[in-house]
């Protein structure tokens, strides 16, 4: 317990456990807070963009209104950030916020999240969302490092219910003729690995229009570029053998600290990933 922590004087913050400095606290009742869509790189023509990125769409502010029960609302207030896929199996969508870091120290991401398929059928639908997850895109003076964490809810109609990470991305592809722009699909379906001991059942609830919020905390050290562990609700994962996608530092990404959330659909139904709020804190 951290009952003496000064944030407990603020009810909106008292459900978080931030490190000593808050880098940002994005409550989506206040607006989009700098969250936007992740577009792929391009040069000369937008058609040079990798198709999976070209399919990404803009995040929304949702009050989670349903045909059967009206407005659900967010964890607090009315609105949550909503990342929605198209209604195509395997489709994904990604929301991103881009900042830089001022000290390569320990950082902590916390969020309250929920996910559901579109309520287009009168059935349980608990295996219609394939994945939800998040990633950092980071760079120090030596490397570009991309920790990826996802909850594999279902795959090709089979219930999976486990956390995964990845250490490999697709080969780089040059875009355009100037030699300045490259792309890679670090969120491709390939090369995901199971987090050791990473099985977890979440609270889906019984129909697509009932939403239960979950807590996620992810700790990372920017000095060593190592995972420090994560927590989802009552399960804590230490991750001593988990690592990130790593590649040589790129020319124009110094001190990059990007945070992305993503989701994928497993069926011909839109997958919805909701974030009530996101708190990024650090030691600096």
């Amino acid at each position: 317990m951290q009952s003496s922590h000064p944030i407990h004087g603020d009810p909106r913050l008292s459900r978080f456990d931030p490190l000593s400095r808050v880098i940002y606290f994005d409550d989506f009742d206040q607006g989009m807070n700098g969250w936007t869509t992740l577009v792929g790189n391009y040069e000369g023509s937008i058609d040079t963009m990798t198709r999976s990125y070209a399919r990404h769409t803009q995040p929304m502010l949702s009050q989670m209104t349903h045909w059967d029960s009206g407005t659900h609302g967010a964890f607090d207030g009315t609105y949550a950030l909503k990342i929605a896929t198209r209604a195509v199996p395997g489709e994904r969508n990604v929301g991103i916020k881009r900042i830089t870091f001022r000290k390569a120290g320990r950082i902590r991401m916390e969020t309250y999240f929920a996910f559901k398929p579109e309520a287009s059928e009168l059935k349980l639908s608990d295996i219609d969302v394939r994945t939800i997850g998040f990633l950092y895109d980071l760079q120090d003076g030596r490397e570009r490092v991309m920790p990826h964490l996802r909850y594999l809810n279902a795959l090709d109609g089979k219930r999976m219910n486990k956390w995964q990470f990845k250490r490999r991305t697709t080969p780089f592809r040059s875009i355009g003729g100037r030699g300045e722009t490259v792309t890679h699909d670090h969120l491709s379906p390939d090369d995901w690995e199971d987090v050791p001991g990473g099985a977890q059942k979440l609270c889906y609830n019984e129909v697509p229009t009932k939403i239960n919020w979950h807590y996620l905390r992810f700790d990372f050290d920017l000095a060593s570029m190592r995972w420090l562990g994560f927590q989802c609700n009552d399960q804590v994962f230490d991750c001593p053998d988990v690592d990130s996608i790593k590649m040589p530092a790129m020319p124009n990404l110094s001190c990059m600290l990007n945070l992305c959330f993503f989701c994928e659909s497993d069926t011909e139904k839109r997958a919805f990933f909701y974030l009530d709020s996101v708190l990024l804190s650090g030691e600096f």
Partner: protein
Amino acid sequence: MSAMIRNTYTAVIARGDVWRQSVQTEPYEAAWAGEAIFFVRVMEATGGGAEPPAATAVARVQISPDGLCWVDEGAELEIAAKAESLSFARVANFGGWLRLDVTVPPQTSIKVVATLALKA
């Protein structure tokens, strides 16, 4: 929402998409916004002809109670099927969801950037 200043957000709802025949944009939730403008910019057109009268696509603004079923709001964009044509439609009091229901004339396609400029 902040009471200090009016929130605004522009969503790109079609980014280099090629529209042919009948197309519906993805549902966009914007209950927080009191007003919106749809813009459609044509990047390229085929089959419409560069000389007037170019073929015209029609995009009807639609609203929804739940994001599942849709009805025409009444506003429409007339989109000239020629490069760099720009059209818009203003809407307000639209509830929770917005999308475009687009009809492109036969033998015509348009590559577009469509945006939704929202304001609280």
